[in-house]
């Protein structure tokens, strides 16, 4: 009965009810988007980091992975000493350098990124066509590299680690065979990338990269105290900084803090807008029906039922708006994610907006609660109005 009355009241003024639901839907969509934005970046990055399967990243002291061209020397000895530690089960050394490749069919040179790694322990790429590296003279590349160089899997190519355009001279050149196409997990969209065995990459760089690496990825034994392992490594090897997954996430949080703060502000504004819309409509609706409510009270309808009916109106508006907002929010999140996908330096598959059902439900639940609260004041007013005076005033009116 209460719900039927609430619905009848809302349907009596269809245009403004529809507008209020539309307004709440936009507010709900914005709220959902901002919740997705607030948690999406962190969870997306966590997915990348955990997909690699390593808990620690060792970089030259004071740097972030591949944030600079700095490298660590004595890499083989360092990796061996790490492998000997009881809590460490795998060590994956990486060397990042430039890669220059003559384009097939003309004399232009394509610049890209070369990753030297151990194919047995790497977690940086997933082979999607062809096969993985099996010999020192083999190369795995991504689709962007293939498109830019005009090469195909199976081709033998001359690549170099350095290039002097003035005299068109390559440095550290090697002839390698393209054996596979891979998706590089952590690389930005549009980046041309290739991977070779670590020894090949180190040899291509000559003396400047001999026995040197940019990053060492470390996997710890299940159940091991990662923070303790990290502290031991930093204490024992002053040339490196050890970065845990938690610290990496904190670093990303700091770099992208602007988006989290924006998400918080806009989500708060969305909640306020939803509250104001529902509150205004229900208040006006109660004012219009003040005589009707007085009559209901006069014939014995309990205060509780009046309160429930008025708050029910707010609840129906919020629920309808939140339902519509869920669909609208997913569409706008896709649109906004497309815009932010062009953000420079982030992995191509990085999602700014990630749909987490529990977070979405919590956000929309909060909006519905706001709608319910928005009906509280007019409901209290309706339930406590002086019956006789209201009936007399309404009769005179």
């Amino acid at each position, binding site marked *: 009965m209460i719900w039927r009355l609430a619905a009848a009241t809302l349907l009596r003024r269809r245009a403004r009810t529809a507008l209020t639901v539309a307004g709440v839907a*936009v507010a709900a969509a914005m709220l959902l988007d901002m919740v997705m934005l607030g948690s999406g970046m962190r969870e997306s990055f966590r997915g990348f980091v955990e997909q690699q399967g390593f808990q620690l990243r060792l970089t030259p002291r004071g740097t972030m992975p591949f944030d600079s061209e*700095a490298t660590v020397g004595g890499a083989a000895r360092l990796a061996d000493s790490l492998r000997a530690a009881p809590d460490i089960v795998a060590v994956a050394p990486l060397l990042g350098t430039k890669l220059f490749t003559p384009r097939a069919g003309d004399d232009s040179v394509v610049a890209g990124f070369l990753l030297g790694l151990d194919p047995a322990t790497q977690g940086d790429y997933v082979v999607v066509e062809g096969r993985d590296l099996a010999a020192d003279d083999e190369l795995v590349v991504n689709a962007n590299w293939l498109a830019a160089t005009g090469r195909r899997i199976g081709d033998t190519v001359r690549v170099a680690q350095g290039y*002097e355009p003035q005299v068109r001279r390559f440095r550290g050149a090697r002839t390698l065979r393209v054996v596979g196409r891979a998706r590089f997990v952590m690389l930005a969209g549009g980046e041309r990338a290739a991977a070779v065995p670590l020894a090949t990459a180190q040899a291509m760089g000559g003396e400047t990269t001999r026995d040197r690496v940019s990053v060492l990825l470390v996997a710890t034994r299940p159940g091991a105290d990662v923070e303790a392992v990290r502290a031991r490594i930093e204490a024992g090897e002053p040339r490196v900084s050890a970065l845990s997954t938690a610290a990496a996430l904190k670093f990303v949080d700091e770099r992208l803090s602007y988006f989290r703060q924006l998400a918080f502000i806009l989500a708060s504004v969305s909640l306020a807008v939803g509250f104001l819309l529902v509150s205004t409509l229900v208040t006006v609706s109660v004012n*219009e029906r003040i005589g009707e409510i007085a009559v209901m009270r006069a014939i014995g309808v309990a205060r509780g039922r009046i309160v429930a009916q008025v708050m029910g109106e707010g609840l129906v508006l919020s629920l309808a708006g939140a339902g519509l907002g869920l669909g609208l929010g997913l569409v706008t999140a896709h649109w906004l994610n497309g*815009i932010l996908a062009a953000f*420079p330096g982030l992995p191509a598959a990085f999602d700014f907006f990630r749909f987490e059902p529990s977070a979405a439900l919590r956000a929309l639940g909060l909006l519905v609660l706001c709608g319910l609260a928005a009906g509280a004041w007019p409901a209290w007013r309706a339930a406590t109005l002086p019956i006789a005076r209201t009936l007399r005033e309404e009769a005179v009116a």
Partner: protein
Amino acid sequence: MPLALLAAVLPGPPVCAQAAPVVPRTVTIDERLAAAAALAVGDRVLLAPEAGGPGDTVTIAAITRRGADPSEVARSEYRVRLHLDHLQRLAGTGDRVGRFAVASAPGVAPESVAAAIDAAAFGFRAYPAAAVAIETSATFRVVNRFHRAIGIITIVASAIFLLCITLLKVDERRRDVGALRLLGLSRATVVRAVVLEAALVSLVGSAMGAGLGWAASALVNWHYQGVYATPLRFAIVTPGIVAFAVTLSLGLGLVSGWVAAQRLVRRAPLELVGR
């Protein structure tokens, strides 16, 4: 290699390094590094290409403030400036540079200078400063597009909110309007009155919004200039933006007022007074 150098700046007492000059060379560091490492002008530090490796003892000659460069905002790296020959020797790069900055004569278009250099010097690529600025501010261009998209959603939400409020206000006074209509007030007068009221509300609202926007931009600038240690202004309220906001708000107000008024004048006066 220069980036490796930045990461390898270690505070400490003078250290005799390999081939260290008798009089230490001077460097400048930025405010961020000075604050993080508690360094001051006159301090001596060891500058090395690799942490723990050999390097030069240098004297900090000055502490610099970062320029308002969008490309540097999100980067939390420290910045040390050395004399070119000093860096070349320390990094072992010989007589090499990363780039040349060229100042053109007054009145000469940078594009024509860049084209002349490209045509004359094989192996070089010259870019006008404006082109470099566009390339390095890619982050901000993406953020700008994102802000525009958020702005569109906000405008849609505002339009619905305004229309809803106007309808409610007009509905609330339908009995008064019905009585006025019965007294002889024309439909056109009712429409004009409602539209005028909506326009006034929009104007007052947009004036308050402009003030709020100015205060919010001041707060945003204060906060992010502190966070990123940069003089860059993140939010600017220009006369053009205010004019756009007021015009848009007025337009929305006029449309919502007209729609609400049409709903009112379509009904008969007796119906409006509830008969």
